[in-house]
């Protein structure tokens, strides 16, 4: 959004000036195109132009939505109580094994131990942030599920000099989530108190020991403490403030699959088993992200009441692993489960199962347990993929020297790109006309286009086992038709034959046909158009190994496909095609 309060075009300003002077009695008969006066007007118009530009910029920087300078956006976000996210370190989960020495029963792995790993020929250093202890078992020490973080450990030290002071950490690549702040009462003691980030404080009272960290205009970070009145305990003047943090390279280090640990105490080898690959590294929150997340976090007010609150807070706090979140109350679930809130997380592609599990636990422990309404439980459900099969036909101008084959590839790329950019996430609606517009705009050689849309769901079949299968489509299906089949499936083995399922023409009953079109089973289930349910009853597929059955349907509305809840619309590339038809653009005499 941009607020535009005055015209910034130089020519318009000069013309406007001329008109204004022309309305004045003293200058009404002047020739403003004359060289002398025109030059003066050029100067005035230029002066006006520069000042108007500055004034417009100042106005635009006054609001979060229209601000362009990062420092302005940060300030507006801070006014909403939103702390922008720093870079985050990529992290991995490893299990470490060390051979025991004679007489050694317990072994401690100190925090800060280094591990190295490579991605795309770039080398990264990871460290564990917490000390671990293991007991001897079968002459080995096994440290299970040790989380290691990418980055170089750094330390900044300050002297606390009073309540109004902020302490600048001159580093733009900090991961603030991995920061520790130790307060020593003086420089001669090794005793310290750990202060915690105010973002992680559950309650704050006069004894709380919290710090505030935020990004400042030059990209560095500033550390604050309480004034001793509102935000808990203030360090005593003269205390030593020691800040330990990771300088991270963010997303570059995602995807490390193996690690080499440095020798323990310089002598003892450590064998490393990777439980989950490195993931979750991310850049600083961008301006677009801040503009989107800060207002949403403000509406949530650190409370989890509405379904939107769940989405907003989870997005703002766990975006390094999660690309999208959708939440809905149990009252809207099928079947309803009152007193529950369902949350579905769409993880980034590089996040593996253990990290997904750990993230869900973190959300439960740190967010929903603390901020939701008592007696309301949070239940995580996985996203459900639903697919579209697009049959695109387009006419191309025969007079244009284009290759139909090349155009077909280009159109298919447009379709793929359309899904990549606007779909394949929660709440993303497929609108056929938007895609057709993209295709029509691809090349002047494309005269017109059409797309036939089918929906598709998949299920893994348990072969050689008679079983019911239910497919829930997140939209209504077309009613039975007297000409076309609404439901069709992929081919599978049934009683030794290659067969597939279709609905009986003009009926919602599903039947099994062989490839010659002969009915092999008169009733294997049915479908309910209004609820989008396709039900296969007691289907026994021959044992040919693992297989996926695809059920294709004609939606009731093929122009707009709107997914429900945790459904995500994807494109089935294999079942979709683009076909060019050469159009001679000649008017025919006969049909």
């Amino acid at each position, binding site marked *: 959004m941009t607020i535009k309060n005055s015209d910034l075009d130089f020519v318009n300003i000069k013309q406007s000036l001329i008109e204004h002077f022309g309305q004045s009695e003293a200058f009404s008969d002047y020739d403003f195109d004359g060289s002398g006066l025109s030059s003066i007007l050029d100067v005035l118009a230029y002066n006006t132009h520069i000042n108007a530009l500055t004034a417009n910029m100042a*106005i635009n920087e006054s609001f979060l939505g229209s601000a362009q300078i990062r420092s302005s956006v940060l300030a507006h976000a801070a006014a909403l109580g939103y702390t922008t996210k720093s870079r985050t370190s990529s992290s991995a989960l490893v299990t470490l094994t060390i051979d025991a020495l004679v007489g050694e029963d317990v072994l401690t792995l100190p925090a800060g131990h280094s591990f190295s790993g490579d991605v795309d020929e770039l080398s990264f250093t990871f460290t564990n942030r917490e000390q671990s202890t293991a007991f001897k078992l079968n002459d080995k020490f096994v440290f299970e599920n040790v989380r290691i973080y990418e980055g170089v450990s750094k330390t900044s030290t300050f002297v606390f000099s009073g309540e109004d002071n902020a302490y600048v950490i001159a580093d733009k690549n900090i991961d603030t989530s991995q920061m520790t702040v130790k307060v020593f009462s003086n420089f001669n003691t090794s005793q310290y108190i750990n202060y915690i980030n105010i973002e992680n404080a559950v309650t704050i009272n006069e004894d709380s020991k919290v710090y505030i960290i935020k990004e400042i205009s030059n990209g560095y970070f500033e550390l604050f403490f309480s004034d001793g009145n509102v935000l808990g305990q203030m360090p005593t003047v003269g205390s030593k403030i020691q800040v330990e943090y990771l300088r991270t390279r963010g997303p570059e280090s995602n995807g490390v699959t193996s690690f080499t640990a440095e020798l323990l105490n310089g002598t003892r080898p450590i064998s490393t088993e990777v439980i989950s690959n490195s993931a979750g590294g991310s850049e600083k929150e961008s301006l677009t992200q801040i503009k989107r997340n800060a207002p949403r976090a403000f509406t949530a*007010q650190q409370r989890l009441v509405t379904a939107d609150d769940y989405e907003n807070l989870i997005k703002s706090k766990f975006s390094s692993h999660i690309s999208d979140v959708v939440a809905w109350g149990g009252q809207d679930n099928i079947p309803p489960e009152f007193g529950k809130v369902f949350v579905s997380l769409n993880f980034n592609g590089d996040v593996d199962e253990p990290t997904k599990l750990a993230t869900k636990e973190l959300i439960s422990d740190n967010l929903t347990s603390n901020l939701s309404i008592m007696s309301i439980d949070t239940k995580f459900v996985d996203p459900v993929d639903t697919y579209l099969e697009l049959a695109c036909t387009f006419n191309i101008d025969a007079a244009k020297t284009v290759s139909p084959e090349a155009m077909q590839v280009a159109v298919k790329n447009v379709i793929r790109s359309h899904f990549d950019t606007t779909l394949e996430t929660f709440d993303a609606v497929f609108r056929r006309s938007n895609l057709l517009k993209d295709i029509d705009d691809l090349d002047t050689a494309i005269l017109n286009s059409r797309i036939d849309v089918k929906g598709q769901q998949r299920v893994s079949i348990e072969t050689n086992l008679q079983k019911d299968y239910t497919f829930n489509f997140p939209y209504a299906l077309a009613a039975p038709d007297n000409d076309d089949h609404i439901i069709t499936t992929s081919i599978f083995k049934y009683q030794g034959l290659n067969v597939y399922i279709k609905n009986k023409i003009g009926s919602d009953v599903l039947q099994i046909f062989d490839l010659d079109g002969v009915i092999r089973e008169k009733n294997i289930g049915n479908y309910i158009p209004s609820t989008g349910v396709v039900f296969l009853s007691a289907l026994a597929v021959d044992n040919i190994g693992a297989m996926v059955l695809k059920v294709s349907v004609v939606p009731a509305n093929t122009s707009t496909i709107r997914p429900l809840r945790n459904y995500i619309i994807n494109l089935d590339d294999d079942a979709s095609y683009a076909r060019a038809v050469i159009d001679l653009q000649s008017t025919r005499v006969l049909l």
Partner: protein
Amino acid sequence: MYNIELNPSRNHISFHNSKVAEALPDFYDSEYPLFVKFLETYYDYMDGDANGSFSRLIRDLFHSRDISSLKSSIDNSGNPIHNEFLDSVLEEIGDGLESSSFYNNPRMMTRLIADFYRSKGTQISAEQFFKAFYNEDVEVTYPKKNIFILNDKLGGSLVGPDSLHYIQDDKRYQIFSVLLKTGIPFNDYEELYRKMVHPAGFHLAADVVVQGLAEINVRAGLTTDPLAVAEAPLQLVALASPLAAPLFTLLTMKSTVPVDSTFAVSSAKTLEQYQYMPLSRLNDIHGTVANWVSPASVTMDNDNVLMSDTSYREDADEE
């Protein structure tokens, strides 16, 4: 036009006048009056609303985030012109709302919106929501209070419409349920209400309340017109039996003339008080019909008048 309204009692007033003549040496006035006029015309241009004029923008900077100073105006056709600064503030804190989203007084709602967010999920937030967006009253109830529970009282439990106790179901009558009674259709507010107020995990039930009008007849005396002669003594002759099934939940009133016709409608709660009130006591309280119907009346215009589901008729002519 621009939509900044300055309130002289709370903002600095900007008196803008040209200082060109004062800034220039005195001899410019006498030697080059046209040049002085030229500069004054230029500054006049910059203070106006023309293309590129920026002085106004700079003045607006002081108030662009002052919600109380940002006011919508009306165009020649009577349509509101929304203040873009107010909308920009709302864009930050309103999660998609615009000043036009509110039924009335968007500036006040913008100021209150943080309080509204903090109270979301409460009864107050629901009432605030309907007032802010639809100018409607709402009655928030919890159907869990009407769930039939076996042996919850001595002598046995009741179930059914008479007792207002119902067997638990998977919708309205269960623990996690909220019932809204308001005068607008559910579809009109459901999406926005769920987004902004409704606690996830609770069933949302809604009733549309149709507000009706009922009348009671009260008359003072048989021969004089108490409304015409305000000082006429009040005579309550008889109480009538209930007219009809519950019609409304909100209090309405109506006064009519002439004397032998209907007079006012109030709630049953109020009338029940009269049922057991001696006439002398009624006279002590009100004295005259004029006092009784006056806005200061203790029974007609204060908290004693409660909502009710039933109306009663009192008609002196029935005596």
